């Protein structure tokens, strides 16, 4: 028995760090994921996959990890998280463009600070709201920010700002790098941030503060009765979640080297960040990152392969809603179990096909009968 494993209930759990226990399958998956993550630059070199799109996907996914803190624990749906992603990106861009700051680190820190301040202010104003009001209020602040940037000469309207202090790339780790080296090193900087921030999120979620957020999500009144300062905790969670968006946005500015309002601040970007979390799996820590990569890949590059690329993305999302209710990553265990069972009993496959056909028939039947009712009325 090594220091990194524990036995409980006849199962061996892997324990990489104190407090985190994974089943063997989870540990194996995690390890594969980590190796894949580190190998992305090499994988994309030998496959037609796009390196920069995966990088972008991870960044939006990181913002979704932040948003998931609100979604999963306080059960608040934010429809305005692009505000923080955009604030992070524009914070870095303004420093590079108007102040010729060349250090990538300083640009990032600047972006994160701006995003955090925006999150502090918005969070203060929305912390007392619930449900749809919370969603729509965050949306309103997002749009105010978008409109403000879009109409401002300082931000160069919709043409946006280049993140190229003195016309060159920002320095990474103090180095002036060639384009290829820059993108690879920036990618590993992103990976480092991602791992640290995932770990931090895991710590937050499993701290008393995280438990308190769960309590707030389940019932605010009860949470208040047991002495949790609900609004203040929601405010703090909101700010943390905005900070994640800011880091992602700042790194996005360093990756794209040009920031425009529509791709980072428009309200539908907020929707996309939200949907990444659901797509990947709200109930998981890493799911939003997977959701980010999948959704960004579809949104950016599906157009190169199919004519009806909106519909393709839509269908993928429908599949998630109806067939993978726990998201791509959240449903992995069930998919694994299901596949294993079907390997043992091939007959189940026929049943599956039958039930899919049946549900399609049911849906069509329902549609026909309701259309009949709507058109001809109830007999």
């Amino acid at each position, binding site marked *: 028995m090594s220091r990194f494993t524990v036995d409980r209930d006849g199962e061996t759990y892997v324990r990489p760090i104190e407090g985190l226990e994974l089943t063997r399958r989870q540990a194996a998956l995690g390890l594969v994921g980590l190796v894949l993550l580190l190998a992305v630059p090499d994988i994309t070199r030998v496959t037609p996959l796009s390196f920069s799109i995966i990088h972008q996907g991870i960044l939006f996914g990181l913002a979704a990890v932040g948003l998931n803190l609100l979604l999963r624990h306080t059960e608040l749906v934010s429809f305005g998280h692009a505000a923080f992603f955009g604030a992070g990106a524009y914070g870095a861009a303004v420093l590079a463009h108007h102040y010729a700051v060349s250090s990538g680190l300083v640009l990032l820190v600047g972006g994160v600070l701006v995003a955090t301040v925006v999150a502090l202010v918005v969070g203060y104003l929305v912390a007392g709201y619930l449900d749809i009001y919370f969603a*729509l209020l965050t949306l309103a602040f997002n749009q105010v920010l978008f*409109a403000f940037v879009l109409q401002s000469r300082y931000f160069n309207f919709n043409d946006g700002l280049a993140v190229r202090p003195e016309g060159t790339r920002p320095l990474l780790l103090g180095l002036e790098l060639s384009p290829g080296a820059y993108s690879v090193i920036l990618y590993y900087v992103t990976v480092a941030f991602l791992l640290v921030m995932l770990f931090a999120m895991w710590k937050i979620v499993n701290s008393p503060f995280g438990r308190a957020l769960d309590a707030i999500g389940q019932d605010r009144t009860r949470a208040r009765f047991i002495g949790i300062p609900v609004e203040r905790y929601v405010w703090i969670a909101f700010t943390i979640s905005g900070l994640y968006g800011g880091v992602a946005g700042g790194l996005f500015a360093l990756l794209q080297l040009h920031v425009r309002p529509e791709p980072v601040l428009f309200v539908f970007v907020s929707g996309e960040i939200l949907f990444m979390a659901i797509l990947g799996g709200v109930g998981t820590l890493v799911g939003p990152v997977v959701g980010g990569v999948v959704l960004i890949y579809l949104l950016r590059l599906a157009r190169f392969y199919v004519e*009806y*690329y909106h519909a393709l993305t839509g269908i993928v999302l*429908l599949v998630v809603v109806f067939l993978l209710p726990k998201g791509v990553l959240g449903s992995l265990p069930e998919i694994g179990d299901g596949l294993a069972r079907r390997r043992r009993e091939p007959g189940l496959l026929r049943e599956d096909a039958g039930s899919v056909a049946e549900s399609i028939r049911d849906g069509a039947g329902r549609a026909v009968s309701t259309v009949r009712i709507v058109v001809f009325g109830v007999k």
Partner: protein
Amino acid sequence: MVESVVVHTLNGIYYGFVLFMIASGLTIIFGVLGILNLAHGELYALGAFLVFSVVGFLAGLIAAPTDTVTAVIFGVVVLAGALAAAAVLLPVGAALEATFVRPIYEREEVYQLLLTYALLLILIDVMKFGWGTSPVSTGTYSGLNRIPTTEVLGFSYPSYNVIVILVGIAVFAWLVWFFDRTKTGRIVRATAINREMATAIGVSTDRTFTLVFAMGAFFAGFGGAMVSIGPSDAFLEMGLDPLVLSFVVIVIGGLGSLKGALVGALLVGVISRWTVGVFGLPQLELAAPFLLMAIILLAKPEGLYGTWGEIE
């Protein structure tokens, strides 16, 4: 100057009624079903494309207006076309509700958002398949403007805007009548207020929900049709901005409140026009509706007519 304030206000009211027609469907659906339908803007766009085809067909049957009488006939035919186009949305809405929306009423709100977002994307490509990728125009705007209204107003103002205002008032009056005076309308309201009670007295919530969704789709489509017979083109993704503005409208008015949607729409319309025309702050044109929404929400969280999840 006084006259220009009047014209700016009329412009605002006109735009407010456009917004009201779109937002009314959204607020009905939210009020009864509790679903924030992100695909609503695409149903609006679908109405705009459909009216292009319907009016294109009808315009072949009648001549372009030359005098007052033919102009009025032209107007009636075009409005009939708008209604016919919106009527197509009834079965479309019903089918969408029965097939996609019904299975997820019990799911968390975010899944409902995700589902309607997926429908939004799919509907864009349905229109792309049906009408191609380029904008289309019905070309009826100048014909509608030949209907004389100048005499009525006392100064020159586009007749189309007057028609939109009148139609908007009619839509509001019809909705109030429907929910207040008809049996079906009362059943819908009863279902909105208490689903279980409604079921207990023998109301089929399934059918009510389908009906309401179909109605919401109808008004979205009608709004799109009314816009598209005017000076605007119908184009893919035309639904995004109106969708976001309808959120603003129904939040200001109070979610689920018809009166609120009307007042909210007129407020947004008039204030955004005054921002540019009267206050002289063109740089706030885009932000004005959202600032208004944030201020109202912060001051009066339930909106002006704070209904939550029921039609009023």
